[in-house]
């Protein structure tokens, strides 16, 4: 599995993880969606950054 395939696999999971994490101890669905979107952005940014680092290491290793 390449880095791009791993990224494509994990990014959709970030949406569910972000929403469920946001729903803990929160009642208002609007607030859950807002915090969930923020969690999704954080997770997606982290995954893209990690994928870039991994791809760079692979490129350096030749």
């Amino acid at each position, binding site marked *: *599995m390449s880095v791009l395939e791993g990224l494509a*696999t994990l990014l*959709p*999971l970030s949406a*569910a993880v972000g929403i*469920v994490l946001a*729903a803990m*101890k929160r009642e208002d*669905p609007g607030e*859950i969606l807002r915090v969930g979107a923020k969690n999704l952005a954080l997770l997606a940014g982290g995954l893209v950054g990690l994928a870039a680092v991994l791809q760079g290491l692979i490129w350096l290793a030749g």
Partner: protein
Amino acid sequence: MSPSGRSRTIRAVADPAVVADAQPSGAPPRPAWAARTARPTDPLVAAVLAWAFPGAGHAFLARRRKALLVGGAVAATYLAGLAVGGLDTVSATREPIWFIGQAFGGLLTLLTVAVSSPPHPVPPSAGLEAGTLYTCVASLLNFMLVLDAAGTAAKDLKPPKEESPTPGGEPGRPVEGRVEGAVPIP
């Protein structure tokens, strides 16, 4: 009605303990806050329902919009895993370690196992498949919903902090009628 009788009536409405005692004989005493909210608050039932199907525990606790949101997210992830990897991704013989996590998926996992049970043993997969990962993560997220539903139900059982035991019941609400011990304002 005499003034003293009226003051007893006001006190009975205002005092939660008196309201709890005023239930019909034979019925278990019910706290005043539970009578006001009228929501089901059994943590065990909420946890079992939340395990059985994503979001069912929150729907039982009368949080239907939250149940639709989180249950839909978890169920969509689980079904996406089944769509990507097929029904064989949920198998205790093929993926025994991942099946431990998938067991938290409740009826989704039970139904998938019942439908996909092959007549012959399936060889273990060579590597991690996306469908296995999706179903396992969705099931573990469902376990988080179980904990949240049980915690929410337990929180509903507790009286709210702003509960006022003083005459008048709700804070900030003026007391009508005559209250015992009150000094009339000239």
